[in-house]
């Protein structure tokens, strides 16, 4: 067992790991190559596992170790591996196509971080300091995942954005005390199921439209005349 750190230091370390997850979220927005995006995503999941493990240690909550394990095995190893395999199978190694330039995406990202901090701090005035800061960080990660889903054309990167969003949710869940394990397990498995469905859809979309750029679907949806 690790030595029990002082409350202040343990709070700072939790904050630091949360910030690492957030930085990985910015890394996802910054990358231009599909392979690099997937590697960054794996890194983010690893940081998430570390965050969950640290919370398990300082809250003395054994079930959070399970969360950390799930994050490490499924999200840091299985999902990136599957996505790498998909990218390989579909033969897409090209650069990420963006709807908004990378620089502007980063600017919007920072604005979203400021927004989530402004939002979370007054709402959670009564909560413990550790929870508040982690919630602000987690909210930022969720919004960055959403931003990634909005600003990317390619279906694979949109799925990575979805998974990053889900990483933010788990980060929020582990920092709130008393989150039942069954909820986390069911979330983890539904993400895995979603991953499988996305994989099948990729092949279907590709077969039908010869591309994974989702703009071509808009004519069929009636968005574009």
């Amino acid at each position, binding site marked *: 067992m690790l030595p029990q750190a002082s409350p202040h230091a343990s709070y700072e370390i939790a904050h630091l790991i949360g*910030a690492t997850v957030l930085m990985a979220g910015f890394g996802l927005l910054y990358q231009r190559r599909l392979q690099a995006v997937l590697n960054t995503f794996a890194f983010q999941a690893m940081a998430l596992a570390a965050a969950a493990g640290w919370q398990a240690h300082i809250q003395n909550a054994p079930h959070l170790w399970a969360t950390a394990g799930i994050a490490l095995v499924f999200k840091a190893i299985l999902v990136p591996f599957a996505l790498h395999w998909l990218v390989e199978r579909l033969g897409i190694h090209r650069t990420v196509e963006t709807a908004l330039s990378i*620089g502007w995406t980063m600017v919007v990202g920072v604005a979203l971080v400021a927004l989530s901090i402004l939002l979370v701090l007054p709402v959670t005035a009564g909560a413990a300091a550790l929870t508040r800061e982690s919630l602000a960080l987690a909210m930022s990660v969720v919004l960055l995942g959403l931003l990634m889903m909005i600003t990317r054309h390619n279906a694979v990167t949109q799925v990575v954005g979805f998974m990053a969003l889900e990483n933010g949710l788990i980060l929020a869940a582990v920092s709130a005390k008393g989150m039942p394990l069954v909820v986390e397990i069911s979330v983890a498995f539904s993400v895995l199921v979603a991953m499988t469905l996305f994989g099948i859809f990729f092949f279907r979309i590709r077969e039908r439209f010869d591309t994974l750029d989702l703009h071509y679907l808009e004519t069929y949806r009636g968005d574009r005349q």
Partner: protein
Amino acid sequence: MNTSIALQLVQILLAVAVAPLVTGWVRLVKARMQARRGPSPLQPYRDLYRLLQKEAVVAHSASWIFRAAPYVTFAAVWAASCIVPTFTTDLYLAPAADLIALVALLGLARFWTALAGMDAGTPFGGLGSSREMMIASLAEPAMLMVTFSLSLLSGSTSPAHIAAFVLSGGIGLSVSIGLALMALVMVAIAENGRIPIDNPATHLELTMVHEAMVLEYSGRHLAMMEMAGMVRLTLYIALIGCLFMPWGIALPGAAPAGLAVGLGAFLVKTFTIATALALFETSIAKMRVFRYADFLGGALLLGLLATIFHYVSEAV
């Protein structure tokens, strides 16, 4: 008072004495990583000596700016290196100098180098100058943002105060300081023309930035320009060491033993960071010119986030 003047003199000489060795060390580590034997780390001293022996050739079209620029550049960088604490914070110039003065001195050096690049009237020089100015216009705001977030944390823009504040445990493991460190590292890479931004060893026209500006120089002028580059690299390494890992640095009133420890710690930190730089440079490819804005914009945003997170920790 007298000790601080003496220490300041030692620091002024140390900055110039160590700089070629640091550059030589980076080159040696990079050579070893590329499975080459590489020259001895003392090679930059020999190169500088050789250049100082040689005749300086100046283009017919060049004006006095071309002759003056190497000296002004070197003087500005050297002056900047005087105010960054290396082994002790007990420096005579420490109260007068802060990070903003440092940015200004480095900006002066860059301005003169860019002028010299355009002065001879060759296309490469102009191309190098325009690229250098583009990088500078992106790197300087990021550097100032780092300065602001550090001064918000510690209540001072003086490197000596910030180092003392970090040593006293006033900051701890703050997110802001981690973000500021990342931003400063990115700025330092850009400012020194290291690999993702510029390749210090290139002689291929399309990729040159700093090399293109000093292409026309020879002899003692080139020696001054090269020396300025080496001192700038050591200065940034010392700055990162002093602001973010000031452990071992001698505070005012330290005994001679403390100064010796400070000197040893400075050398260990410098060569560790230099090795890390060489490993980083070997593992990464050079970036396209059009991506500089993203890279340095990223540094600026990290600095901004450092400030935002400072207010979050304040609010809690």
